């Protein structure tokens, strides 16, 4: 019986390496269980449940989702004349199995029928599903909608909608993007207005909406026409109805199983989530933070799948009298792919763990009685720390892992040579699926903008110092750690230089400085893994030794102060082509 959880030695390793009992402890403290009869007895029992749950995910992924991926990619979903969408039958079957397996309320509290899993376990699950079919993750991953409702909606809406999500009866969509509001979400125009009775309605157009044909739409709309920026936006919930139609189903490069819709709202009844004006600034930012970790997980899964294909091919394909994996160039491609995946996984899982601490602290903070001032103070302090760290690590993970995914998927095609270019092999599908990961949920460029703040504001420094507290007895690990400490200094030197240079140069150098900072962080995380595992020591060594020169290069690049892409744009870019 194939199982994508059990057959993945790195996920297995991390499952044991991360202190899941500690995670379970904070996740279960004060959990809202209602009268659920599936509550763990203690932390160890909860971890045993996580293992069991991921085992189910691994089985559904391997036995049901993976075998359907090729057909789903070839055939896609269908837009009907009446503005509804029919999902591919195999996509529907996959959704049915996920619902039957109780995997559709993954992180929701038990009183709503959820599994109350920590984000880290959800991240692992998302990766496993994505390995089976990158596009299936988009539907699985939209559980973030339910999470957002749980975090911000009133009790009435929660009671009404969340159990339906948990039972797998409904799927949702996160409806933000418009033709003129992509990266710049402050420009959202879709109108929200009230009738005399205070009921809300939505009118306007949204595009590029994943599963816009779903049952529950979380829509960001302008409720305050007099406020032009993000503070004029609120978040609304509405049910699929005649009043919101799919006008167009996008014909995409990849993730064909995931329907991407253009939506037309015509006086669509809606209900306000939380408070007015907090739509973008609070709710959507939170929703997107979770979704960014999910896309990192999707990237891991697609890369893992591409890698496995390339690894097998390199072993079996014979040229020059032996398997191509014996050729140095191929050996390097293969090992670097695997190490890149492990490095990105280390960062993503660590981010997820930090998010868990953040979410649970916030939950506890809200439950503290007014009287307990000390505890409130302590948790408020923690909240600020978590927020700053998650605010840096989340965009770093999304950026680093999605870029890794595109690179690994490209390399996999290269390892397969001409076969990789043919539709007969899945390598081309992985490459097409991979390509979206650096674009949606905020492009890589936007992730960098967000991450750079953390690198320049002291979060990076503080976090590194914390990572440096790990003492390594092993001489190799100790030596590598010293190198990382020196690297951090180099990054901080470049940061100091940047600070004197103004925002345009900061934006221009964002990629270099963030790349350099990530190498230091990932290096430390891998050293931590190496402390308990000999192979991981070698992985850490290879990653650090191969990336240090790149880090030096990036820091030097920053220190060069070269602004020609800005100053000499017209000259270097040449005029806009006349007939494009």
């Amino acid at each position, binding site marked *: *019986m194939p199982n994508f959880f059990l057959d993945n030695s790195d996920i297995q390793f991390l499952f044991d390496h991360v202190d899941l009992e500690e995670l379970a402890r904070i996740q279960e403290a004060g959990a809202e269980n209602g009268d*659920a*009869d*599936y509550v*763990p007895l203690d932390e160890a029992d909860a971890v*045993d*449940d996580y293992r*069991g*749950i991921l085992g*189910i995910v691994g*089985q*559904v992924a391997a036995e*049901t989702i993976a075998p359907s991926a090729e057909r789903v990619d070839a055939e896609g979903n269908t837009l009907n004349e009446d503005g509804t969408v029919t999902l591919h039958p195999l996509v529907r*079957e996959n959704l049915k*199995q996920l619902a*039957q*397996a*109780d*995997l559709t309320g993954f992180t929701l509290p038990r009183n709503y029928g959820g*599994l109350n899993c920590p984000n880290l376990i959800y991240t692992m699950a998302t990766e496993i599903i994505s390995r089976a079919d990158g596009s299936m993750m988009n539907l699985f991953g939209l559980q973030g909608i339910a999470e957002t409702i749980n975090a911000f909606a009133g009790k009435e809406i929660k009671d009404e909608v969340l159990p339906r999500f948990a039972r797998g009866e409904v799927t949702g969509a996160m409806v933000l993007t418009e033709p003129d509001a992509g990266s710049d979400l402050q420009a959202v125009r879709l109108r929200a207005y009230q009738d005399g009775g205070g009921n809300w309605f939505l009118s306007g157009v949204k595009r590029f909406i994943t599963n816009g044909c779903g049952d529950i739409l979380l829509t960001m709309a302008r409720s305050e026409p007099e406020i032009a920026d993000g503070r004029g936006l609120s978040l609304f919930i509405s049910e699929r109805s005649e009043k919101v139609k799919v006008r167009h189903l996008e014909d995409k490069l990849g993730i064909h199983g995931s329907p991407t819709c253009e939506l037309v709202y015509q006086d669509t009844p809606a209900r306000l989530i939380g408070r007015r004006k907090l739509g973008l600034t609070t709710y959507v930012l939170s929703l997107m933070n979770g979704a960014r970790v999910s896309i990192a997980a999707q990237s891991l899964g697609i890369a893992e799948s591409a890698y496995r294909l390339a690894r097998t091919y390199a072993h079996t394909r014979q040229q020059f009298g032996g398997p191509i994996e014996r050729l140095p160039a191929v050996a390097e491609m293969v090992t670097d792919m695997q190490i890149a995946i492990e490095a990105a996984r280390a960062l993503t899982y660590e981010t997820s763990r930090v998010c868990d601490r953040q979410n649970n602290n916030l939950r506890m903070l809200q439950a503290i009685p007014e009287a307990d001032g000390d505890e409130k103070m302590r948790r408020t302090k923690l909240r600020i720390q978590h927020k700053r760290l998650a605010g840096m690590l989340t965009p770093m993970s999304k950026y680093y892992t999605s870029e890794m995914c595109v690179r690994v998927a490209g390399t996999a095609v290269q390892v397969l040579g001409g076969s990789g270019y043919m539709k007969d092999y899945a390598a081309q599908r992985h490459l097409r699926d991979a390509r979206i990961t650096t674009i949606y949920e905020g492009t890589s460029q936007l992730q960098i903008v967000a991450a750079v703040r953390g690198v320049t504001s002291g979060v990076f420094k503080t976090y590194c110092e914390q990572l440096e507290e790990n003492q390594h007895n092993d001489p190799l690990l100790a030596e590598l750690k010293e190198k990382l400490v020196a690297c951090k200094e180099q990054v901080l030197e470049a940061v100091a230089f940047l600070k004197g240079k103004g925002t345009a140069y900061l934006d221009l150098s964002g990629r270099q400085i963030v790349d350099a900072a990530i190498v230091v962080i990932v290096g430390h995380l891998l050293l931590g893994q190496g402390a308990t595992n000999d192979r991981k020591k070698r992985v850490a060594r290879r990653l650090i030794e191969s990336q240090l020169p790149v880090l030096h290069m990036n820091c030097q690049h920053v220190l060069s102060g070269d602004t020609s892409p800005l100053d000499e744009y017209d000259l270097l870019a040449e005029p806009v082509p006349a007939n494009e």
Partner: protein
Amino acid sequence: MVGFVPYRSIVCVKQVPDTANVTAEAMKEDGTVNRAALPTVFNPEDLHALEAALELRDAHGGMVTALSMGPPKAADVLRECLYRGADRGILITDRRAAASDTLATSYILSQAIRKIGDYDFVFCGRQAIDGDTAQVGPQCAEKLGITQVTYLERIVDVSDGVVRIRRNIGLGWELVEASLPVLVTVLETANRPRPRAAKRMIRFKRARVRSELAGEFRKQMAEAKAEPEMPGAPFGQIAEWFDESGLLIDQWSLEEIGADLARCGLPGSPTKVHRIQAIVLTKEGYTQVAASNEGIRRLVHELVVDRTLG
């Protein structure tokens, strides 16, 4: 709901050696199977039988009871049934049932089914991967004196005590009608078994048959001896707690199902394995037969001569 009739189903499931993952230790020196060295699995076609029963319950309501015969460890397959949605599990476990052939097994199962009593459907997998006989299901039906429909592919509909079933007959299918109760054997192509439901797994991972509980209790007692401070509840109290929590899987002995011991285990099994021979089929050329009456006549003649027919 109008016309809502809940059906009571029994599914026979078996734990079998995993013949797909056989290792070198799988065979003993004397050529017999070394069961201890083989990993065990849920007999694949029984999963489809379970799914057929669960789908029937999804559509009409009712109750699904999973029934197995085997050592206490076979409770694994009953837990698996509970994870996937079965309402109840029953294990017939008794040393005197060991070495039962299909005749004895079907006798024991039919006795248990009688004891369960009211039922409309008995679902069996077509065959088990260890024996490959496909006999137990049909023999059970005979002993129970109920209709049997083998090779079920789909339950088309069921109403007024009559079920219509589409069964696979190799190169095609036929639609049959049977009055309830009925025993069916289910093919792999009938459905796609649902996965475990996470919440049920979390709940029922603790479900045990009495023998398992006793084993765990003994182990704990031994450990407790080393650590005398450890408090321990008496066994009866533990078993009661499991029962009250719905976590006690029924365990029946041969006496409890009123079985005649002479018809069980070795004494009740007339099958004697005389010799095991590995046969490799090889193809030696072919003959083309003209599509005429004469051609067909010659073909039939040839098949009769080499005893393929008749």
